């Protein structure tokens, strides 16, 4: 059997969980002629058993377990040596990690690149980072190569400044070039040094396809961890030398002193490359530190980031507007030749850098001192971090919402709030609290606000706005239903995620009715688009807490219309929805429940007898102690009447959602019933509980089958309240 052209060395250490997928991704490569040499550095998990089980099935695998723990550098070196020992004719070599995954075409594509391009010494694909569960966790693959760059110094410089060692080191390289480049030298960040040396050997070629998936377990690069992993038997002193200094020294020694380099690099050139590396890497190190500092600073003090971005944009704007950026032509004439100009730029840059260093240096010390304060450690920093995390997913939407509100407020025009065309539940639970917050936050004059809703919902907005327009005063119920259903079918559901043609038409009608030529519109989509992050579990509860104010609804007079109602009663309304579907069982249970309830306390049915939304009302029928008020309701007053009845009720009972949220706003206990728990939305439940706690009025959700529990509750309520009086006209007794 001939030795394969490709050999893969896999240094292994304690990654048994990911290993089967890793090994299988290598064994299923469409390019099959390779040897896989697995070198286990004394793993304490099942690594050995796993590899041996595959080795028993596939003769391409060679498994070696080290007698003593070598550490990462020596294990990588050993993997290379053993691999080439195993397959001495292998022209191409690649290291494979014990946790990443390779696409089945990975090897074929890379072999093809090296075969076709003799000037290339290392080929690697684009990659994506995946989490432990295999899900891709970053979007854009990193890109860099030096393909086509013949000039050695240019390759060296580009590699120095743009390389990302972790994204390249698992590429397929030429074995002899890797050997000449020293494999892995005993320094920190050895992959970087190896790639620098390889850049002197030839070009790097990146394949523009994602053929490698790097598994990330949430650990960031750390020199401390490298020291620990590289030198498990004790850290040598040189492990504490800054990496760029040790790399530069190694390069100078190898290239300049030992002159152990390929033709084309003399001793002096080698020394100069070492010096160049020292300068470039030192600068890079400084830049990285600066960047890390900036990131850390912005993580801790989020308020600084917008200031920074604004200042930077301002600076760029000034440069652009004053024409300073266009000065280069005149600059050239004024300062003569390119050399002088470059010197001048260098001088200016150096001065700027020195000044920046001084400023940043002192700022950094100050920040460290502030951070060290116990109060900062225990309270302020955790709070800042929490704030940041809370707002990250919806951050952009928060900005857009605030911008929209600011635009509306600054316009100085009358503001149409709405039109609200969606469910009662969302209006009560989210829209009104959001408006309450917005009016307070942006100090909006209530006289400017014209709320547009339907069914007499003005009673909910009295504290907020001076003006109200009812949609049913603008169009017939039939037209409203028709247009609204059209809107749903176009938008896919009821939610007002964006203004529709119907919204625009209503705004026009309001303008015409009020004789307004120009208005600003505060549309519910501003709220919907923000809070959807919370509803769909993408944003924290604080998103809502920061942008909604829950307070009692304005009180409603009992009024002459409700005179005939008993002094104490239970307000009841049932309709069907996914969590409470229309079924024989549910109908029967409601009937039984209303009867049982009416024996303990008068019941007022809120069913409006109108078909105004997508809910199918259920009328539990009549009986002794059951009162109907549908004759009091018209399309333009139904919500007003129902609100008044709820506001003066002893308790509200009905289908969970919609009106059941209203009770706590009037200080009335509410019981929301359902029969399919899986259809309840957890975020709405969470808010309803917080609502009931904040407004000190219970909002209980119960499965309808627990009728006995509800009856028990009512017995308690009834006992507390005493007996009730008989109904009086004009409310018609239903029995």
């Amino acid at each position, binding site marked *: 059997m001939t030795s394969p052209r490709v050999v893969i060395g896999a240094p292994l250490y304690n990654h048994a969980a990911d290993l089967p*997928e890793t*090994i*299988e*991704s290598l*064994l*299923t490569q*469409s390019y099959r002629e390779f040897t896989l040499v697995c070198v286990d550095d004394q793993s304490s998990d099942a690594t050995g058993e796993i590899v041996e089980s*595959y080795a028993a*099935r*596939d003769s391409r695998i060679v498994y070696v377990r080290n007698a003593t723990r070598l550490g990462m550098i020596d294990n990588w070196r050993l993997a290379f040596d053993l691999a080439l020992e195993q397959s001495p004719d292998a022209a191409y070599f690649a290291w494979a990690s014990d946790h990443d*995954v390779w*696409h*089945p*075409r990975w090897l074929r594509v890379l072999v093809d690149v090296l075969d076709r391009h003799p000037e290339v010494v290392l080929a690697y694909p684009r990659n994506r980072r995946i989490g432990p569960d*295999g*899900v*891709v966790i970053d*979007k854009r693959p990193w890109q860099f190569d030096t393909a086509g760059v013949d000039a050695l110094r240019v390759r060296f410089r580009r590699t120095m400044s743009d390389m990302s060692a972790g994204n390249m080191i698992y590429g397929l390289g030429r074995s002899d070039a890797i050997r000449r480049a020293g494999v892995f030298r005993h320094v920190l960040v050895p992959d970087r040094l190896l790639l620098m040396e390889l850049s002197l050997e030839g070009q790097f070629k990146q394949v*523009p*396809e*994602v*053929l490698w*998936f790097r598994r990330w377990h949430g650990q960031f690069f750390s020199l401390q961890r490298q020291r620990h992993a590289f030198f498990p038997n004790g850290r040598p002193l040189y492990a504490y030398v800054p990496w760029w200094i040790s790399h530069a020294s190694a390069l100078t020694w190898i290239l300049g002193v030992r002159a152990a380099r390929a033709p084309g690099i003399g001793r002096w050139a080698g020394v100069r490359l070492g010096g160049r590396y020292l300068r470039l890497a030192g600068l890079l190190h400084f830049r990285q530190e600066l960047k890390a500092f900036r990131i850390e600073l912005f993580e801790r003090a989020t308020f600084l980031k917008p200031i920074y971005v604004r200042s930077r944009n301002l600076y760029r704007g000034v440069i652009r507007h004053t024409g300073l950026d266009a000065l280069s032509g005149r600059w050239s004439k004024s300062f003569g030749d390119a050399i002088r100009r470059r010197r001048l730029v260098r001088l200016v840059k150096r001065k700027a850098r020195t000044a920046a260093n001084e400023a940043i240096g002192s700022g950094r010390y100050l920040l460290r001192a502030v951070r060290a304060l116990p109060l900062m450690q225990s309270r302020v920093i955790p709070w800042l971090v929490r704030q940041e995390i809370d707002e990250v997913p919806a951050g952009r939407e928060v900005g857009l919402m605030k911008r929209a509100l600011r635009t509306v407020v600054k316009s100085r025009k009358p503001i149409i709030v709405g039109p609200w065309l969606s469910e009662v539940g969302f209006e009560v639970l989210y829209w009104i609290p959001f408006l309450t917050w917005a009016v307070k936050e942006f100090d909006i004059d209530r006289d400017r606000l014209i709320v547009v809703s339907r069914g007499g919902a003005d009673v909910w907005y009295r504290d907020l706005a001076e003006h109200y327009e009812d949609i049913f005063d603008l169009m017939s119920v039939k037209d409203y239903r028709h247009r609204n259903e059209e809107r749903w079918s*176009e*938008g*896919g*559901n009821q*939610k007002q*995620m*964006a203004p*529709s*043609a119907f919204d625009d038409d209503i705004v026009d009608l309001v303008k015409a009715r009020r004789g307004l030529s120009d208005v600003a519109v505060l549309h519910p989509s501003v709220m*919907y*688009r923000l809070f*959807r992050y919370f509803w*769909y579990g993408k944003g924290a509860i604080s998103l809502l807490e920061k942008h909604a104010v829950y307070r009692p609804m304005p009180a409603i007079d009992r009024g002459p219309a409700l005179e005939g109602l008993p002094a104490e009663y239970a307000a009841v309304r049932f309709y069907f929805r996914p969590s409470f579907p229309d079924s024989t069982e549910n109908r029967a249970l409601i009937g039984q429940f209303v009867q049982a309830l009416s024996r303990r306390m008068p019941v007022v049915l809120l069913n409006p007898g109108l078909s105004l939304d997508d809910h199918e009302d259920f009328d539990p029928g009549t009986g002794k102690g059951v009162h109907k008020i549908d004759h009091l309701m018209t399309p333009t007053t139904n919500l007003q009447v129902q609100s008044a009845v709820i506001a003066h009720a002893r308790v509200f009972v009905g289908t969970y959602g919609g009106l059941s949220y209203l009770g706590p706003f009037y200080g009335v206990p509410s019981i929301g019933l359902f029969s399919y728990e899986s259809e309840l939305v957890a975020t709405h439940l969470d808010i309803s509980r917080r609502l009931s706690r904040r407004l000190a009025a219970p909002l209980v959700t119960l499965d309808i089958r627990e009728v006995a529990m509800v009856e028990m509750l009512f017995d308690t309520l009834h006992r507390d309240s005493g007996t009730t009086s008989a109904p009086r006209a004009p409310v018609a007794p239903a029995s």
Partner: protein
Amino acid sequence: MTDSGSTTDLLVAADAAAAAWEARLAAMRDQPVYRSYERTRRRVLALLSLGRNRRLTGHAPSDYWSGELDKFEYMLDASPLIVEKLRLHTHNLTGLHANQYRDSLRKHRRRFREKLEALRALDEVDLWVPEPRLLGGFGFDIGGQLVNLDTLKFYEVLIAMHLGAVLTELRETTERKLVWEIGAGWGGFPYQFKKQCPNVTYVITDFPELFLFSATYLMAAFPEAKVRFFGEVPAEDTFDGWRDLDFIFIPDTFHATLRPEQVDLLINMVSFQEMTTQQVDGYVRRAFDLGCPYLYSLNRDRSGHNAELTNVRSIIEKYYWPHPVDMLPVSYTKMLNEDPDEGDSGYKHVVGWRRV
């Protein structure tokens, strides 16, 4: 006299018009498209009679599909006029109607354009194939090209396949490859795929009734294509000379009896989630047994109403390493600014690599 004369003239003209109409229909029956349809119908009728034992062999369509198949039984006797507007009848499969793409629906049009732009931003190699103006093709006219929900869905799938690194090989291959799709619907995706990967033999397994749409459509879109239906040659020869064929149509009841010498990619979109555990397992295991290196799936773990399925991903995982491909933040059913319904957000582009 004058009146009766003019009435006679009118009647003569009407007869002439009727005759002209019949002549036009007769001429349409002679068109290649209608001949393709007739060929398909002959095969479908034969396959239906062969598939009568569906329930016995465990290939019975679900209750949902039984109802759906009944809805377009009329396609077994379609006039040339229906075939000429075949795409207008595919709503039976997709729920998409041409009137949802009227020019007046500007907001919808804008949303489609936005989504198309978002997809183009993900597309590194120009995989865009618009809906052809063929057999009544419809969609919003964006930049002179027709775009509908299916077009965007198929475009998204092609991009996902590219990002999952399975498409390049099929696009650039010099050797003939074989791709097998389970449930190709009306043939929209095979059309796009074939446009992008011409050197591929595309095998479609589906309910025979659906070939009335897919086979007719594909034969119209690729008039030069070489097509074979199961049963046109002895069953064991179905894959003989497959490298010379463009499309092979195999009914769902017979896929397990055939053994192509190679399968390079198995595709399923939105139908595994509707099947039973046994059916999904059967298809995935079959691909594995045939040595198919890749599998592509766009499915939810399970349809909300499907109680006969455990989980698509867990079944795939038994035979293939699943690699999710991250695409847009909304599912293919939604536009960018639409509310992501919980049910819709479960669609995942998954590229599976065959296990050892």
